[in-house]
């Protein structure tokens, strides 16, 4: 495996990085609006325009072909919207129909060109599917640099408007923003990116470039601005790493390798991103379950100890087990945990005793549980909106006035757990 870092490779590197960055920027809004596959549709719909432009221009003229691709690409988008709005055809079928029919038309034109002209080289139009970054020229990089700059410019200037239209189009329209025009502008940006990327990345893989960086970035942040920037960065990284790898392994089309790099990044994000990643969520879940189990233990222990107060704080393990129907091994694990936290002392094999710390903890937990129960008993309608299983502290969820009145009710019933100092006073 050789790593020639000469001029050509640098050109390709720069070009794919810029393409990746643009695709990442522009794709982030599409992905957020659940229009991830619009890039795929655009890429397929652009083929007939490419071929038609080739025929009309009489040869491989980049500007003409780009214009043609853009024209049919946007036509495809308009057709999809029209089908969705005016017929009973649903969105997914509309995308599939427009995509495949226009692509078929493109194949027809492409095949016709191959059979009837001498100028239509097989390789030129076939690289459309698979991409051929090795054929990237300096001019192409200039185009891509221009595209990248243009994308960044439009995004920066219209950031707030795009944000509004992406998240609440109805509100935007009511506020007087031209929601439809902004929508079309966003689509146009996507279309331009797709069309410029086609010679390099190919059809299906251009669609991937629009989705992967944005989808990956989504897992690392909750803020739109950060996500868009991160998406652009990821796109650039994917593009450059992919094309470097592809240059190393000659004979491999760069498009698929770039996509695979992107997939690896995506799956890594899905699994390992700090808060939204699967692993993080699973750990959170495990943690949560453990906290709940600890609380149930403390509750059970307090209930057993309550009748004996204030003298004894001893509990038999057998009593605990019957109290809550734990399995022996489960209970043993919980007790070990409680012991590590200093909540209990072991007294032989069948008894434990609450320490002062443990007692205080148990009181806290019991108070919270009884407050919730009292709330449900007194105000069952309101409880539905207030109760939040994730918020372990009731003191954060309920207003102080409500807390006080609940406490008063519990004290009156004699159900309010008291610390020793309070009990003896």
């Amino acid at each position, binding site marked *: 495996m050789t790593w020639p870092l000469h001029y050509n490779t640098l050109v390709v590197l720069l070009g794919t990085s810029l393409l990746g960055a643009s695709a990442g920027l522009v794709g982030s809004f599409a992905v957020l609006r659940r229009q991830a596959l619009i890039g795929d549709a655009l890429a397929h719909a652009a083929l007939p325009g490419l071929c038609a432009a080739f025929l009309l221009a009489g040869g491989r003229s980049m500007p003409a072909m780009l214009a043609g691709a853009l024209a049919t690409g946007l036509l495809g988008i308009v057709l999809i919207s029209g089908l969705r709005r*005016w017929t009973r055809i649903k969105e997914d079928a509309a995308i599939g129909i427009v995509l495949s029919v226009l692509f*078929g038309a493109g*194949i027809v034109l492409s095949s016709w060109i191959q059979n009837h002209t001498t100028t239509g080289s097989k390789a030129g139009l076939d690289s459309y599917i698979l991409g051929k970054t090795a054929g990237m020229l300096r001019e192409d990089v200039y185009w891509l640099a221009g595209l990248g700059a243009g994308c960044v410019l439009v995004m920066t200037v219209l950031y707030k408007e795009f944000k509004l239209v992406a998240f609440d189009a109805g509100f935007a329209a009511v506020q007087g923003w031209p929601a439809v025009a902004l929508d079309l502008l966003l689509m146009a940006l996507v279309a331009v990116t797709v069309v410029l990327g086609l010679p390099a990345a190919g059809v299906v893989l251009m669609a991937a470039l629009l989705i992967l960086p944005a989808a990956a970035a989504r897992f690392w942040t909750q803020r739109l601005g950060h996500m868009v920037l991160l998406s652009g960065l990821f796109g650039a990284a994917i593009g450059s790493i992919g094309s470097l790898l592809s240059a190393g392994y000659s004979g491999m089309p760069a498009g*698929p390798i770039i*996509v695979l790099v992107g997939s690896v990044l995506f799956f890594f994000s*899905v699994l390992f991103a700090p808060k939204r990643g699967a692993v993080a969520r699973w750990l959170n879940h495990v943690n949560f379950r453990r906290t709940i189990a600890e609380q149930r233990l403390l509750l059970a222990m307090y209930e057993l100890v309550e009748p004996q107060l204030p003298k004894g704080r001893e509990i038999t393990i057998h009593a605990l087990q019957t109290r809550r129907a734990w399995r022996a091994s489960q209970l043993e694990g919980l007790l070990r945990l409680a012991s590590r936290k200093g909540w209990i002392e072991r007294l032989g094999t069948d008894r434990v005793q609450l320490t002062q710390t443990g007692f205080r903890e148990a009181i806290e937990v019991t108070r919270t549980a009884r407050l919730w129960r009292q709330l449900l008993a007194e105000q069952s309608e309101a409880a539905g909106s207030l109760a939040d299983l994730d918020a372990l502290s009731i003191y954060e969820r309920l207003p102080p006035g409500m807390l006080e009145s609940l406490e008063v009710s519990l004290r009156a019933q004699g159900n309010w757990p008291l610390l020793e100092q309070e009990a003896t006073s």
Partner: protein
Amino acid sequence: MIWTIAVGAVANAACALLGCYLVLRRMSLLGDAISHAVLPGIALAFLASGSVSVPWMLLGAMVVGVFTALVTQLLHTLGRVPEDTSLGVVFTSLFAVGVILITRAAADVDLDPQCVLYGLLDFVSIHTIPILGWEVPRAMLPLGGALLITTAFVSVFWKELKIVSFDPALATAMGISAVLFHYLLMTMVAGITVVSFEAVGSILVVAMLIVPPATAHLLTDRLGWMMVLAVLAGVSAAVLGCVAARYFETSAAGMMAVMAGLQFSLAVIFAPRHGLITKMWHQAALATRIVGEDIIALLYRHEELAAQALPAPEENLTLAACVRAVHGGWVAWWTVPYLRRRGELEFGPGWTLRLTGRGRDLARSLIRSHRLWEAFLGENFQLPLDHLHASAERVEHFIGPHLQAEIAAELHRPAVDPHGREIPGEPAENPAKSSG
């Protein structure tokens, strides 16, 4: 030539049968994804078996097909990735893997990546097998088998597939596993994709899977008919496509997609119930009726006010003034002549409009509906007075005699509306044809 058409037709028919379920269940893009994603399955099969052998490829494709559906679902439920994103990620990644494998495999095995992607319908007659004295293309065998299996699948599981497609929750509650049938369907789609790729390549299978069923969907509301029409549409697209491709000397697969698309466009425009033309006709008819009724009601109100010697909002009742008053617009061009022909309107001096006896009867009924509705709203919703007219203005056109009688009975036959205006009496049993 005949065999080319036959191969195309059989492939189209099988795809159309399965595609109906995809379209109805809004899974068209899953079909698209699977048809792209089977590429690595095919490639793996090549690398594993070292030959272009159909059973191996079928196996590889089906495994990958189910894998695609599974991973997409998993990403969505466990990874919390939105559905379309997970679909896009999975199938583009698999396609990328497939392209890489195919490019590698092409070096080792006699396989042209182009044919996998575009199909070789044009060359299908080259390899033939003699059957019953005919030279049948080799490609016909798996395709014919696939069509038979698909037809059998659809027939045997007709009821189950139907209920699973339209109400999966009910199906599961009844003991029919919606999940099982979902994956079964995906496996069939993957299988049909791989069998069809020889005809049209993996990229245009989507067209065969979705476009004819969508065309059928526009033409009928019954599943059975939809399947029949889809197969017909698919077969005709195949025939027309192959013929046109031969004539223009271009790709047959592409032409089939284009023909399917043209059929679809015709259906979109001309379908008897769901087509654009029918819809526009209905809308025009409705607009005509509404504008006509508005004009008649306007004239009646004028007469009412004149009878009470009260001033009216409109100066005169010329044609232009009336049309403007009811915001008739260009619909009025044919509405007024239409009303004249029906004998409900006539022209007075100076292009003013006048009600005839028939027109007056119709107007009475309309105004009765309007004011009864206002009374109903006022009675039951306690709306302020100025909120009643707008609603009644809209609803009056849709209250027929039956509903009118019901509302009147409900309100105990009121004599006046909330504004204090008289509600015209019930239409007489045998209305005498009074002259204007």
